[in-house]
């Protein structure tokens, strides 16, 4: 029996190539792979021809999919190559890493410990205040969970250890340790002895920097235990494939108990008494884009597209890369001739030579392209980075792969509703009176609740009827992952959306958020969530002290009561809630409006407009009267001008005050005694909304005119932009009419004109003085002057 260790880097194409060559040559009869042991059942699925990487192995406890873990593989991942080789050669594969079945309870324990520690810390604080004697005992107690918190690593325990590698890289004179690994390991053409070298390097590092994380020690103990079991089964050649970091503790020496902490006795001790949980393993499609995230292995890679390229074309990688880049640039109508490609390649080659590299890497190629193809401009290079370096490849999993229930539910719905997902952008106009359209609308709304934006609601300008709904729909492959994430909430879409909303109802304390959720809840027809949401809304409305929140919440609720019938939902329960909220809003309005700054007043105005819309929607006369009463109060109080102006306008529109009263208010508000800023704000508030009504209020214009002309020049210049802004919301036609009106304002003011005429005639005629001109006049006219006549 012999065994060999292949210490690899996850997603390293050089490692993958070396590993594949070694497997072909050595032909092991069993492969022991670093991967959660409970995922073994999903491995045979990888043999299918239809599986196209990037794909990810997904492990989750069925009861709690929130704790799901992904193990992504690309075509250039050494593990993927090993799996494919083993499945093709019918060599058994064993996964040796600590199963998620054990890890998940551990994670939970760790989290609970943290919570407990926090709770106890709180308790400690209280205890400190109350009783100083018991203090010491409490401290020692609460210390224990804290220390376990330090030991147990957070959520992602398998982070790539950068520090020891950085030390090796620094020893080799590299600043960038990733680059060092890349050049030393991944781009090595000759892979013989590669793994021995890695093992040796890692052994040295681990001698100086022993693994201390409890979780990783546990994992390594489990790995050794698995290998020992495999050894007992009597295989001839055992290939052990693991992350380079773990390789030194999996050697034959280590398995035999050297060093002592690796002995089977120690391992057994360590692994004793761990609880297990059921987990499910499956495959899902992955993308290169997501490969660059941190995931189960924690080894995010920056340039998956480049690695795939290097894997697929080991021979002429730089040439093909540059050609592809040039073609990409040409597609974007950027100048990129073949001659330039040749020059880029030459420059990249000589850059590599200057840096003592045997072939140009991504860095050299990028710099060469920047200099030759892009003429020093960075922006085309970003395009190359996005499209080539990262790439947009999407994996495919075979059909027999078991799916999460929620995805099955989705497919069933898509079939029954004849609503196939496509990646093209489509627009749908649903007629909610038709059952199929209604069901589709429910589906899209439910997905919106689950934060899966398959469809975006559009607001149609033309069709305002409540039974039409416009959607823009576009499917994205990543939704598959979103669905799995959403499967925490339930196994069908309806169930998941309901649970999520109920959860929100339990947690949220923001009234606006709740009412919005309620709106969604009815749109998505999630009957079971109605009650809990409604109760929470009631509760929050009762204790909410923020009047603006109350006011903002009214509109979505009012909408619900109105279209309740179209959608077949019962919303009668809602009216009492709505009524209560409205009353509270009315009571709180006046205090909430006082002492507001410019911005706050603007916000307040928006909320008030929403209340106004609510009233228009509901047609409740008693409410209307209440509201008007409040607005009347606003008029006479000392508030921000904007609000007063707006209140004045609304009251006028509803006929609650007449033109005369308006004139009085306008004069008061715009009198020179007032602060001009405040007066302008008032005018702005008044001018909100349609201009047509204003056009017919002659008195208003006159007061306005006088106010403006009485302003001192400096103040006028200061206020001109504000006034201009107040008028800017009107349509051009309205503005033109207003202009005409202002031009002819004199004719509209007969009283004023008459008064000026009277003024003229009142001057007495001075006869003596006029008489003095007579001699001269007579001389001009050539008539004799007779002073007597």
């Amino acid at each position: 029996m012999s065994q060999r260790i292949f210490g690899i880097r996850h997603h390293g194409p050089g490692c993958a190539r070396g590993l594949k060559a070694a497997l072909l040559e050595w032909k092991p009869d069993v492969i022991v792979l670093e991967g959660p042991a409970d995922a073994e059942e999903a491995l045979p699925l990888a043999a299918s021809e239809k599986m196209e990487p990037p794909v990810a192995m997904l492990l989750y406890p069925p009861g709690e999919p929130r704790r799901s873990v992904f193990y992504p593989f690309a075509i250039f991942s050494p593990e993927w190559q090993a799996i494919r080789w083993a499945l093709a050669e019918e060599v058994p594969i064993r996964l040796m890493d600590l199963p998620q079945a054990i890890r998940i309870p551990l994670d939970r324990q760790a989290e609970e410990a943290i919570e407990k520690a926090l709770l106890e810390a709180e308790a400690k604080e209280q205890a400190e205040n109350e009783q100083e004697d018991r203090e010491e005992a409490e401290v020692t107690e609460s210390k224990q969970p804290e220390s376990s918190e330090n030991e147990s690593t957070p959520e992602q325990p398998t982070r790539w250890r950068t520090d020891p590698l950085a030390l090796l890289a620094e020893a080799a004179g590299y600043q960038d340790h990733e680059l060092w690994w890349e050049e030393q390991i991944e781009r090595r053409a000759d892979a013989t002895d590669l793994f021995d070298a890695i093992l040796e390097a890692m052994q040295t590092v681990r001698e100086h920097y022993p693994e201390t994380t409890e979780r990783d020690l546990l994992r390594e103990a489990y790995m050794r235990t698995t290998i020992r079991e495999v050894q007992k089964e009597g295989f001839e050649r055992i290939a052990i494939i693991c992350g380079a970091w773990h390789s030194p503790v999996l050697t034959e020496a280590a398995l035999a108990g050297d060093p002592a902490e690796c002995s089977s006795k120690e391992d057994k001790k360590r692994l004793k008494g761990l609880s297990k949980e059921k987990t499910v393993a499956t495959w899902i499609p992955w993308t290169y884009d997501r490969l660059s995230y941190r995931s189960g292995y924690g080894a995010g890679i920056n340039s998956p597209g480049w690695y795939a390229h290097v894997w697929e074309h080991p021979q002429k990688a730089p040439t093909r890369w540059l050609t592809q880049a040039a073609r990409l640039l040409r597609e974007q109508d950027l100048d990129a001739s073949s001659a330039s490609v040749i020059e880029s390649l030459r420059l990249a080659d000589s850059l590599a030579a200057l840096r003592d590299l045997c072939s140009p890497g991504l860095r050299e190629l990028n710099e060469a392209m920047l200099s030759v193809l892009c003429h020093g401009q960075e922006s085309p290079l970003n395009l190359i980075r996005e499209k080539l370096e990262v790439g947009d490849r999407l994996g495919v999993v075979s059909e027999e792969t078991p799916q999460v229930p929620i995805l099955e539910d989705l497919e069933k719905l898509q079939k029954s509703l004849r609503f196939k997902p496509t990646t093209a952008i489509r627009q749908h106009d649903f007629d909610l009176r038709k059952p199929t359209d209604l069901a589709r609308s429910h589906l899209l709304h439910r997905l919106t609740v689950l934060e899966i934006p398959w469809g975006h609601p559009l607001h149609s300008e033309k069709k305002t009827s409540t039974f039409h709904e416009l959607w823009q729909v576009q499917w994205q492959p990543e939704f598959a992952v979103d669905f799995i994430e959403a499967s925490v909430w339930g196994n069908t879409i309806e169930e998941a959306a309901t649970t999520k909303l109920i959860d929100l109802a339990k947690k949220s304390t923001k009234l606006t958020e709740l009412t919005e959720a309620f709106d969604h809840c009815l749109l998505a027809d999630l009957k079971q969530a109605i009650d809990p949401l409604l109760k929470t809304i009631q509760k929050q409305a009762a204790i909410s002290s923020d009047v603006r929140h109350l006011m903002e919440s009214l509109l979505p609720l009012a909408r619900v009561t109105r279209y309740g019938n179209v959608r077949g939902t019962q919303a009668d329960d809602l009216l009492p809630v709505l009524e209560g909220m409205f009353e509270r809003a009315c009571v709180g309005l006046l205090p909430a409006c006082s002492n507001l700054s410019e911005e706050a007043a603007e916000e307040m105005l928006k909320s008030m407009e929403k209340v106004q819309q609510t009233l228009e929607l509901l047609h409740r006369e008693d409410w209307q009267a209440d509201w008007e009463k409040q607005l009347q109060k606003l008029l006479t109080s000392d508030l921000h001008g904007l609000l007063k102006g707006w209140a004045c306008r609304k009251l006028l529109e509803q006929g609650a005050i007449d033109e005369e009263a308006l004139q009085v208010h306008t004069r008061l508000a715009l009198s020179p005694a007032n602060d001009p800023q405040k007066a302008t704000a008032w005018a702005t508030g008044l001018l909100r909304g349609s201009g047509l009504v204003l056009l017919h209020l002659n008195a208003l214009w006159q007061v306005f005119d006088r106010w403006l002309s009485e302003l001192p020049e400096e103040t006028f210049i200061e206020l001109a932009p504000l006034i201009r802004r107040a008028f800017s919301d009107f349509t051009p036609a309205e503005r033109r009419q207003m202009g005409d009106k202002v031009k002819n304002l004199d004719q509209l003011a007969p009283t004023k004109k008459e008064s000026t005429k009277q003024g003229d005639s009142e001057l007495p005629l001075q006869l003596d003085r006029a008489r003095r001109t007579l001699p001269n006049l007579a001389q001009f006219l050539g008539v004799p002057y007779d002073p007597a006549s």
Partner: protein
Amino acid sequence: MAKKVARKKTPRKKAATATASNGNGVSETDGKALRLHAEQQYAAELEALAEVDDRQRPPNWKLSPWAVKTYLLGGKLDNGFEVTPKYIGRERLMEIAIATLATDRALLLYGVPGTAKSWVSEHLSAAISGISTLLIQGTAGTDEATLRYGWNYARLLAEGPSEAALVRSPLMDAMSTGRIARVEELTRIPSEVQDTLITILSEKMLPIPELNTEVQAQRGFNVIATANNRDKGVNELSSALLRRFNTVILPVPDGMDEEVQIVERRADQLGRALELPAEKPALEEIRRIVTVFRELRNGVTEDGRTKLKSPSGTLSTAEAISVVSSGLAMAAFYGDGVLKASDLIASLVGAVVKDPVQDQIVWQEYLQTVVKDRDGWKDLYRASREVGA
């Protein structure tokens, strides 16, 4: 024309000695020249590098690319010899530039004024060819003859077309001897004259139809052109020409400290060339000048709190250097030899205020909003009030 003949005649013969460059003999007497060529000033460094350099050299290169890199970026040689850095900035850019020249591709150094384009080009050619004087100064009046060849008309009339009547351009010289020619301010040369370069760069030969002959470029020939993209009145490069260059954009210095280092080093060297008796420039003053330049250039104060207007000028590092060195001169001749705000202020204002109306407003605003309130800058503010700017 006669002057041109006189100028152009000598350099080819003496170029190898790397001391004569102007034909009229000014630079032959070392030590009196106002400004020494790179290969003169750093002769010792080049020699030391050549001594230890045992790596592969491209044909006709005086140094290997690795040694050229060390020459530009500075470093310590194995024998303990210290090479001063010529370019302070990103190492990667110099690598691209050297690798470009090693692949026989022409190099275009592009950027706003004052980013050390000419400086880099001079040192590159000094290190690679041992001579930095095969130089064509691009102007709006540069004609084809400057780039290719002209005629000594007296001879042409007397003897007819012959080699002897030909006035060779630096470019032609560089081609026939396999060295690097420099074209300064490429974008100032009229477009139709720029086009002359296209065939030279792609065919690597220059036909002389009058003599029914041609000049073939020898290995080692290359062109380094510099161009700037911000000045007024420049001619855009045609895409055909641009395609024949590898472009390296030299950025303005990244950080404050880097820029201070550049200004200090250069001002120090210039001070020596001018034999100023003033002591070494006070770092504090330099830091202040660089801060003023950076803040006005970026339109925001270094702490990122106050937004500023930018003046119409470019405010390059090169201008900062000249402000400091003229400040040094002021301090030496009219002051007490120590660089002070009052010595700097006149040239500082001159550098900032290029447009007498608009820039004046910008400068006044800067004085009032930034300089006036900044700790320890009172003297600068007072000095600027005194000169009435």
